[in-house]
């Protein structure tokens, strides 16, 4: 006999993600979960962001990597609170589970920050699947990865609130086409905004900062 028993497999982690949100939101903290392939430019984007807007962002970072503290060290240079979450020295989890985030909150000065950036493990697939208590997922895709990636990894582009296309200064060298990339993003998610920038030249960075300002409900200026 077949007996019905409906259970959400992710119920426990979904509940913990709500607990993370219930901890951060009442303190006025907005949380962005940055997801992109290894080398997409997530850390460089944060470096540029902190250099330009650390005063009003009052940011902290949870830095997710399988191994090393290299990215955390880069970001700590800004005087920003950083917690490193390593998922395993020789090939651990391919994404940050919400339990990493929950544990990291204890090490962050929550009363002093306004924005929390979670830099997820470099990976276009798995992190898209998991709610870690963020307000928004941010898809970070470098133009150098190719303009076809939204079609190959559609879930992230469905789950994200915004796509940040990085390294647009490399367009002439990598044979990727921004117009085609925009079309491919639209094929997966026609409603998602796309921000195009270069952390190397600073081009487009204002658009990203404007987006953050709006997400934090701060007036311009």
């Amino acid at each position: 006999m077949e007996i019905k028993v409906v259970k959400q497999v992710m119920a426990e982690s979904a509940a913990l993600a709500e607990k993370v949100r219930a901890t951060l939101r009442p303190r006025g903290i907005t949380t962005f979960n940055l997801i992109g392939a290894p080398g997409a430019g997530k850390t460089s984007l944060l470096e540029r962001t902190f250099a330009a807007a650390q005063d009003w962002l009052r940011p902290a970072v949870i830095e997710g990597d399988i191994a090393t503290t290299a990215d955390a060290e880069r970001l700590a240079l800004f005087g920003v609170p950083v917690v490193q979450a390593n998922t395993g020295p020789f090939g651990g989890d391919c994404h940050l589970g919400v339990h990493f985030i929950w544990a990291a909150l204890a090490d962050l000065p929550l009363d002093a920050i306004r924005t929390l950036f979670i830099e997820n493990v470099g990976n276009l697939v798995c992190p898209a699947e998991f709610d870690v208590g963020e307000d928004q997922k941010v898809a970070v895709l470098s133009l150098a990865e190719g303009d076809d990636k939204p079609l190959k990894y559609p879930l992230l582009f469905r789950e994200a609130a915004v796509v940040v296309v990085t390294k647009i200064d490399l367009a002439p060298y990598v044979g990727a086409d921004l117009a085609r990339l925009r079309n491919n993003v639209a094929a997966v998610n026609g409603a998602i905004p796309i921000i195009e920038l270069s952390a190397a030249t600073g081009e487009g960075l204002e658009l990203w900062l404007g987006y953050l300002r709006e997400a934090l409900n701060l007036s311009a200026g």
Partner: protein
Amino acid sequence: MHELSVTEEIVAQAAAEVERRGWKGRVRFVHLRLGALTTFVPQSLVFYFDILKKDTCLKDATLLVEEVAVRGKCGACGAVVAFEELPFLCPACGCPEVEITQGRELELTSFTVDEETHGDKSSQTGDG
């Protein structure tokens, strides 16, 4: 590779349910619904399930995965659409603002359990 941690969760939840309901040793199939827009590969879930079940009350059970198609609702004309491929555009009006309503499922739905073979069976007889 993230199927491993998800399958651990599936086995833990299913085993807890089986223990709670006293179905130990009698579960033939564990039924799971899996949306086509998840990043989980059904064959990988089954592969890990067969490894992880060994030391549990599910050691004789098989995981059956039912794939759930992607469906969406157009934000403009309200059409309800099944998608087998990209793009997620409304085929009726061309609008790109399609809300995905189905395809992200990851849920245990039922268990196929053998009838109890021992004990008093008189209550099961004579019901035509």
